[in-house]
């Protein structure tokens, strides 16, 4: 089979629906779970095939598939991957697989729907990463909302899960408006320049655009993606969702930073002149978010909220990196985004395991867990170290690239990033001290069980990857190198 010509991406996008169909037809929870698992495994293998057959030397898009979709609007079903997006495919597939395994035994009602929705979410998320037609991208972007709405609203662990689901959806719809607007402006601009509408990302990249129009498009795209990322002041949905949503969904949301990916993929390349001159707005937004969220994280007493704020702070650093516009920061950004799918989600899943055991992740209900749960403690500690950028974990190369890149652009912002890193470490370690270390005060904690084989196997894969990428960062950097250089070369200073 020739991978280069085989419509691999379409297959990846549509295969989960086969699983969904099977789950819908078969009326047995046990079999449905196994079907979901098998589908996720096949998806992972398929995305890995795409990743390994990807030629990193090519700067442009490969695996491009083009079908007619809406001829009247000249919108196509256009898919493709490049060095920036290709690694996100296995990352999302792996994360979905982990999520399915993590929710294996703890979804008791409507289990079939739950697993079906997870598969649908996987499909549309992969669509976001691969779509090269702006309308198609927008379709996938908005299509992530219904599954998440139901996943939060139906299986949330907080009392206000329905409100949280609504809040999330409204925020995202609000973010979608400027995006759609920007896409329309881009398409009409193409029409005025060449005489016909076009939504193709590849064509829009070549379309000349007036400076003031570029600025409008840039700001609209930044606004739209900032809500999803999330950047301050649009971040308030994430702590709410982290508290109310099922932890595996929070893990998915925190692991896959679609907003930051959108900034990287669309906002900067589509308005290259405006981006080069107004990147400081984004940089400032990122720096404020980074320090602001890290400071707030210091005061959190609930693990899930703490992780939410730390995640926001990390997004701040990533966005600051994107806006720094140099190769080091850019490679660091992609690396760090991939790290999130391993680290942030790993920590959140561990929070979920705690929630299942004790019914709470609140600091005052915990304490001294290290004595009774050594494995849990070790895993949590390892993920935390990766999260604060300790050497030998993948957090370190990503963070050092980001910080050096940011310093190259602006020294002051680099110092701010370093301060944020100290605060983040302080927040996480203080929480570890309160929950895992110290003496056991509550009786119920003494009778708890450590991580079961299913649980530590689920988390063992991300841990292994974190260590491998930490020791050999060049594996990832080589893949993203040419795409990053090409990305930079497009910006007009």
């Amino acid at each position, binding site marked *: 089979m020739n991978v280069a010509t085989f419509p691999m991406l379409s297959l990846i996008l549509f295969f989960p629906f086969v699983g969904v169909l099977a789950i819908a037809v078969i009326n047995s929870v046990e079999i449905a779970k196994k079907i979901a698992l098998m589908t996720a495994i096949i998806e992972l293998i398929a995305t890995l095939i795409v990743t390994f057959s990807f030629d990193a030397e090519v700067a442009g898009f490969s695996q491009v598939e083009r079908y007619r979709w809406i001829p009247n609007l000249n919108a196509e079903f256009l898919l493709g991957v490049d060095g920036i997006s290709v690694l996100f495919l296995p990352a999302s597939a792996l994360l979905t697989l982990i999520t399915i395994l993590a929710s294996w035994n703890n979804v008791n009602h409507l289990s079939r729907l739950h697993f079906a929705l997870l598969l649908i979410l996987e499909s549309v998320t992969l669509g976001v990463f691969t779509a090269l037609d702006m309308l198609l991208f927008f379709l996938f972007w908005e299509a992530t909302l219904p599954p998440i709405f139901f996943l939060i609203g139906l299986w949330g662990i907080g009392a206000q899960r329905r409100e949280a689901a609504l809040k999330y959806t409204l925020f995202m719809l609000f973010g979608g408006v400027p995006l759609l607007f920007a896409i329309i402006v881009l398409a009409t601009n193409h029409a005025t320049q060449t005489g016909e509408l076009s939504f193709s990302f590849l064509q829009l990249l070549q379309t000349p655009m007036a400076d003031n129009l570029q600025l409008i498009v840039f700001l609209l795209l930044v606004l739209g993606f900032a809500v999803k990322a999330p950047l301050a002041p649009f971040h308030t949905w994430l702590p709410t969702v982290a508290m109310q949503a099922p932890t595996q969904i929070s893990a998915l949301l925190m692991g896959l930073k679609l907003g930051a990916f959108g900034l990287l993929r669309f906002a900067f390349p589509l308005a290259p002149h405006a981006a080069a001159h107004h990147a400081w707005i984004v940089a400032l937004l990122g720096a404020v978010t980074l320090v602001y969220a890290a*400071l707030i994280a210091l005061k959190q007493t609930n693990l899930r909220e703490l992780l939410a704020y730390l995640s926001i702070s990390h997004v701040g650093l990533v966005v600051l990196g994107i806006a720094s516009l140099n190769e080091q920061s850019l490679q660091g950004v992609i690396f760090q985004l991939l790290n999130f799918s391993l680290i942030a989600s790993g920590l959140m899943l561990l929070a979920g395991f705690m929630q299942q055991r004790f019914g709470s992740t609140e600091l005052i209900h915990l304490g001294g867990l290290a004595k009774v749960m050594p494995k849990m403690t070790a895993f949590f500690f390892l993920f935390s170290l990766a999260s604060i950028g300790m*050497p030998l974990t993948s957090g370190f*190369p990503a963070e050092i*690239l980001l910080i050096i890149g940011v310093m190259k652009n602006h020294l002051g912002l680099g110092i701010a990033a370093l301060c944020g890193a100290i605060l983040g470490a302080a927040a996480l370690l203080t929480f570890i001290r309160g929950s895992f270390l110290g003496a056991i005060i509550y009786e119920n904690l003494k009778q708890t069980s450590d991580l079961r084989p299913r649980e530590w196997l689920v988390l063992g894969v991300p841990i292994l990857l974190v260590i491998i990428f930490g020791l050999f*960062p060049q594996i990832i950097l080589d893949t993203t190198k040419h795409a990053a250089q090409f990305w930079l070369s497009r910006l007009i200073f």
Partner: protein
Amino acid sequence: MKNLVVFIPLIPLLAASYIGVLHLFSVLDGEKSERITARMANYAIGLSCLLALALLGTDLFSQNNDVLIVGEWLNVNDLSIQLRFFTHGFSLKLAALFSILLFIVTRFAVNYMHREAGFHRFFFVLSLFSAAMLMLVLSANTVGTFIGWEIAGLCSYLLIGYMYDRQTATQNATRVFITNRIGDAGFVAGIGLGYLWLGNTNWLEMGELANPLSNQQAELCAFCFALAAFVKSAQLPFTPWLARAMEGPTPSSAIFYGSVMIHAGVYLLFLIQPLLAHAPLVSMLIAIVGLFTAIYATVVGLTQTDIKSSLIFATSGQLGLLFLECGLGFWELAIWHLCAHATVRAYQLLTAPSLLVNVANNPIKPVNAYLAKNTRFYTYALQRFWLEPLTDLIIVKPIQNLASDLNYFDRHILDNLMGSPAPAIRAISSLAQAKEQQIGAHLNNNENSFAQGSGFAGKITQWTADILDWFESRFILRGVSKDAIDYGKRLGRICQSCELMLLKPRYLALFVFITLLVAF
């Protein structure tokens, strides 16, 4: 021969991962497997020690090259971070000395830690620390040194918190680790600046390239590294963390804070020696900080009543002197001082637990005569000059307060401004409501509005919806006939009274005044 340098940090790392993984999965656990763990750790560090000595021997007889380049760890554009090791000179000598000390302490700990609950954990951390420390000393690249630096700090955290069920131990560990993060940030900033201004991340090249650097740049770059050195070697104002670190088991105190890790800061100064030659201000700062630390630690040390505290303040004092020597440029003296101090202090701290037995019949030494006379000064010294409460007051408290304020702002102001929707379908909470819904009655009429929202955005949406709804039902649905005329008349009356009021001279004067204020 020189290729063997790679194995010096690698062997203890392998031992550490072996012990760590097997202990995590309970293969190595309890007293039975103590022998395996102890052997593993001992052989690993012993082998490293032999390698380091062999390498030192070949270096003494035949001159090795300066560095060995193993390969590239990371390469982005012109940022190239190589895995390279010193195979010559002071670094190798220090590696040999440290590995001997590490071996002695590891061997000592086998008996000392026997039947302790965390036996395997202790040897895991100790092996990891050995690897980190040897990496720190041998790496000829800033990032490599930093990797060792960070991991050593992490090990220090793990061993201070060795008795993790004790409140003070965990508190101290966390505090020490976060203090050390400040130095780490300085180190990263130094690496970044070195790369930006010198285009290189290797120690030797950085030194060679330092010449064209402007004075300010050299000062700033050197200051970042010096900050890292101050923190790691517990110089003022970071000295208090060292006393907190004494919480760990004695062998770890000996190796971390008595002899090996504490000298990492001084070693860092050796590495940036060429840079310091261009940064006279930072050199002066190093000398002054060293001097004050020496005085501070000596005075405080005189009033300490337990053996480990007084030893650690003595260490602090000697380190102050080392910094003073480095700041003044007496590098050769500092080298000898460092090696001698490391050896003596390791011995002293290892024998500290049995010291009380050894000196059982000796008379108690009186407090220093000067201090005994000046009681106020004595109190100052006893309280360690309130250095730690002071830093809490100046740095930690304001940050905590700011964090509290921001947290309040985020939760109560920003969240409301951004809005969060009220439940769309209100849950039925009482039987009466259920009945009510069944018969289709709506008793509580205040909830008949369809859209509900909270927060700024939510409320605005709700109000807009309400107004439009009202408008539609009153004007469009009921027809323009009755209500519209009524409301129109009422509106007309209100407008008329407004106009009458505005035409009164005092309001007119007020408006003119406001306009003038705005205009000028």
